[in-house]
């Protein structure tokens, strides 16, 4: 009895496991997903047709084959992607050898574990809902196994949901108060270097143009206090200093001498919620003066995390928009380097400015760009020739930010002014409802910095000379072919924009408070309660108080549930009637039936026979027939009954 396989319970188990596997299967290559999904389907069909399980050898062969395929695909069986693929395959194979309740129990536990691993795929709100639904389904089918019968009981799904509701206080308490550790316990080598998104560490013509079509969020920012003007929101990313004639690259060597920077003027305090991008740039505003743990400021004034962002991360930063820096000469010399040859026309142009002072050279170049009728386009012509800068400046005259930034730095270096390209994002979209700024990949931008001896690094954005609207009003207002942009980046109907912003605000709060709830946020929350450490007396006090409150609430609920059932209305009227009889001198005996009592009463009070009979009739109809009209009649009759004292 205990080890038979009820087929309906098995279907329920297979269905619940499919729910647990689905998000993982969607991340696998389609052929592998189909192969894995075929196994439970086969198992279900075997049950349906009443066939026996495949032989042990076939099962082992299948398992080895599946694991070999997973290994071949991922080159590993542990860690994030390979491990999950192996877990999924194991669940599928294990289904082929379910003999009884013990196997069902093991599979159910694997199902719970796979549901927990769903958040490796995504931490969206929907994924949480799906995981909860899966947990409810797994718990529901568990009940059928406990009953050992092959029947569906509809109330069991409700019971599982109810369990989830009962669990909510425990869940919230643990979620808020369980100590969060920062940093991983261990790291899998292959967890690094997944497909990165967003900015790349090489700038080549076209690399920003591709990003301009990507409307996915890069990060969200909420300012503590007044936000700076949008035209100054230059979010600093990679700094490109080496030019090979076509591509701009970062220099990773450190000269050993660090620049000194002095912040002046007011500061801006803000909190950024970074989307995972497998990069370590944190894209702070110039110039960060305070930054969180596990991040550092490089000699190029980039704020970078110690490890690539593999998940959403919140960073609180204080920046100072006004700053001076002193650079070592070696760095400045490097920022004059150009390839030995190439782009002769551009070099000739720059040579004309060499007699001017450095600031005048910068102005002259900007002036030249502004007057040159250049156009700002998402689809500039390719520049395949050996002199791409010349081609851009003198032939095609059509480009995107990275083209102009590269060309401008080329001109500056050729004119003898140290200059470099800075990549990052510009501006963002303010979400009024949520009071934060959304910066998308499409806001990616490239600008330049030039070194002026008396003023240090100065930001110059050549795009401002060519398409001033880009700086103030965003991409859709500035490019010549805005129709190519994805819907949300174009100018859209106000109601649509409002709706979209509302949704994004919800997502932002979700990310901020639920997904971004980390050690730091937990501490913030606890600080508000006057707790400064998890080991403090204050924390223990709060915790004990919370637990006691919960327990007391539960006890009260139990008491309330187990209170005696209210004596129903008919009974109450009847008791009042008995009291009246008692006053008239007729006491009811314990255990006396209503009929017997009435008989005795009419014997003693013959004058009230009709009234007493009516009361008995109404009482019986109201109490046992659940007749509401009889109840009303009973009430009035008892209330108006006037008995003369029995002799």
């Amino acid at each position: 009895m205990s080890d038979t396989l009820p087929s309906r319970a098995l279907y329920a188990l297979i269905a619940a496991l499919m729910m647990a596997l689905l998000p993982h299967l969607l991340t696998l290559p389609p052929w592998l997903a189909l192969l894995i999904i075929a196994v439970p389907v086969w198992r279900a069909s075997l049950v349906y047709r009443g066939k026996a399980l495949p032989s042990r050898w076939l099962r082992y062969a299948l398992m080895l084959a599946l694991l070999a395929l997973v290994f071949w695909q991922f080159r590993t069986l542990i860690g994030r992607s390979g491990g999950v693929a192996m877990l999924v395959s194991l669940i599928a194979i294990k289904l082929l050898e379910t003999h009884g309740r013990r196997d069902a129990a093991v599979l159910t536990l694997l199902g719970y574990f796979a549901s927990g691993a769903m958040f490796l795929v995504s931490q969206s709100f929907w994924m949480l809902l799906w995981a909860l639904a899966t947990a409810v389904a797994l718990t529901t089918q568990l009940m059928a196994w406990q009953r050992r019968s092959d029947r569906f009981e509809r109330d069991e799904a409700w019971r599982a949901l109810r369990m989830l509701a009962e669990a909510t206080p425990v869940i919230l308490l643990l979620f808020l108060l369980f100590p969060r550790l920062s940093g991983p316990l261990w790291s899998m080598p292959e967890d690094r270097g997944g497909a990165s998104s967003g900015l790349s560490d090489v700038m080549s013509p076209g690399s920003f143009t591709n990003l301009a079509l990507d409307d996915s969020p890069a990060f969200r920012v909420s300012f503590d206090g007044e936000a700076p003007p949008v035209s100054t929101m230059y979010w600093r990313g990679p700094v490109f200093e080496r030019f090979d004639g076509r591509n701009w690259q970062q220099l990773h060597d450190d000269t050993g001498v660090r620049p000194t920077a002095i912040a002046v003027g007011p500061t801006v305090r803000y909190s950024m919620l970074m989307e995972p991008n497998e990069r370590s740039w944190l894209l702070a505003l110039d110039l960060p003066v305070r930054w969180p743990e596990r991040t550092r400021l490089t000699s190029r004034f980039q704020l970078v995390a110690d490890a690539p962002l593999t998940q959403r991360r919140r960073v609180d930063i204080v920046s100072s928009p006004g700053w001076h820096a002193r650079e070592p000469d070696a760095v400045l010399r490097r920022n004059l380097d150009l390839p030995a040859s190439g782009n002769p026309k551009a070099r000739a142009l720059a040579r004309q400015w060499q007699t001017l002072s450095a600031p005048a050279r910068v102005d002259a170049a900007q002036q030249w760009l502004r007057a040159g009728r250049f156009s700002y386009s998402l689809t500039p012509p390719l520049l395949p020739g050996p002199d791409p800068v010349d081609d851009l400046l003198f032939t095609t005259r059509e480009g995107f930010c990275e083209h102009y930034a590269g060309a401008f730095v080329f001109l500056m270096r050729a004119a003898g002014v140290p200059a470099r390209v800075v990549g990052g994002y510009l501006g963002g979209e303010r979400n009024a409802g949520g009071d934060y700024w959304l910066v998308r990949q499409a806001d990616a931008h490239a600008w330049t910095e030039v070194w002026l001896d008396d003023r240090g690094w100065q930001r110059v954005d050549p795009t401002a000379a060519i398409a001033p609207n880009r700086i103030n009003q965003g991409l859709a207002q500035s490019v010549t072919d805005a129709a190519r942009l994805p819907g949300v980046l174009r100018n859209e109907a106000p109601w649509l924009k409002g709706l979209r912003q509302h949704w994004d605000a919800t997502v932002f709060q979700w990310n901020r408070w639920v997904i971004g709830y980390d050690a730091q946020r937990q501490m913030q929350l606890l600080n508000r309660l006057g707790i400064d450490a998890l080991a403090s007396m204050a924390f223990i006090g709060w915790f004990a108080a919370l637990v006691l409150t919960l327990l007391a609430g539960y006890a009260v609920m139990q008491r309330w549930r187990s209170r005696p059932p209210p004596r129903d209305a008919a009974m109450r009227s009847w008791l009042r009637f008995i009291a009246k009889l008692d006053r008239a001198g007729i006491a009811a005996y314990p255990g006396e039936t209503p009929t017997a009592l009435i008989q005795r009463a009419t014997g003693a009070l013959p004058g009230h026979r009709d009234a007493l009979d009516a009361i008995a009739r109404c009482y019986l109809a109201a109490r046992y027939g659940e007749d509401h009209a009889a109840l009303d009649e009973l009430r009035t009759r008892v209330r108006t009954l006037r008995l003369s004292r029995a002799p």
Partner: protein
Amino acid sequence: MLRWLRSRWQREQTRRHPPASVVALKHNRIYVLPTLFGAIYAATAVLVLIGAINYQLSLAYLFAFVLIGLGHAALLQSYRNLLKIELRTLATEPVFAGDTAHFPVSLSNPGKPPRRALNLSLRGHPASWIEAIDRDDTAIAHLPVATLARGWLGMPTMRIDTAYPSGWCKAWSYANLDARCLVYPQPEANAPPFHGENGDRGQRRVRGDDDFAGLRNYVPGDTPRQIAWKQFARLDALLVRQDDRVEGQTWLFDWHTLPELGTEARLSRLTAWVLAAEAAGDRYALALPGTTLPRGRGPAHRHACLRALALFGQTPS
């Protein structure tokens, strides 16, 4: 020491669960502990938590806590699956020593949610299984007890347990129900046939021809065929024909005729004779020291004889 502890425990159990014919399972008499499956489930939740810490997944933290919370809810559910169930004893059927006695117990669910997957057993005896008791419904379980000795068998402490709904924890309670079962002596196997000559006053009746030998008053157990319907119509009283052809012989089974056997062996043999005589349709009387049962026949007489044999030498309780 151990024995003292055990007897202490028994006394404490009896104090906590006093014998009664109706027992409602109260909240402070229900015990809950996790099962092995529950422990592995908890380990799964901890694994999810470790994953959450390692990959810094806030929602995986949340899900680990969902698993822990579900485990806690399951504990309460198991407990509530037993809470307030009303146990009542029903009448028992006598059995012979060596056979299995069954104590029927009715379980009522006074609440709304159905009670499921209940396991009932008497201490040290096989369990019976109740799949479900629906709202305001009653189920009856027959709890087996192997019998060894004749006499009254008190109902051992009953244990009721359940792992429903999740199997992660087991809730159980004890009840001492006030019920007893009469155990007849074990009938001797292959007992020698009773010899009238050896029996003191075994009488052989003359066989009647076709008419009846007389009428006697109806006693429960007489078959309708034996009832004198003609007389019933006339006298309005149930009479039974004493028909010699059906009746066979009359025996007196006397304790004192078996001096060579020990007490239990004598009782066993007498039991076997009573059963044989009843099966043969004979009338029989039983004489025990201090008790004599007059001649008779039928289930009631049989029960009276077997009861006397079962309780022979035992202080009446």
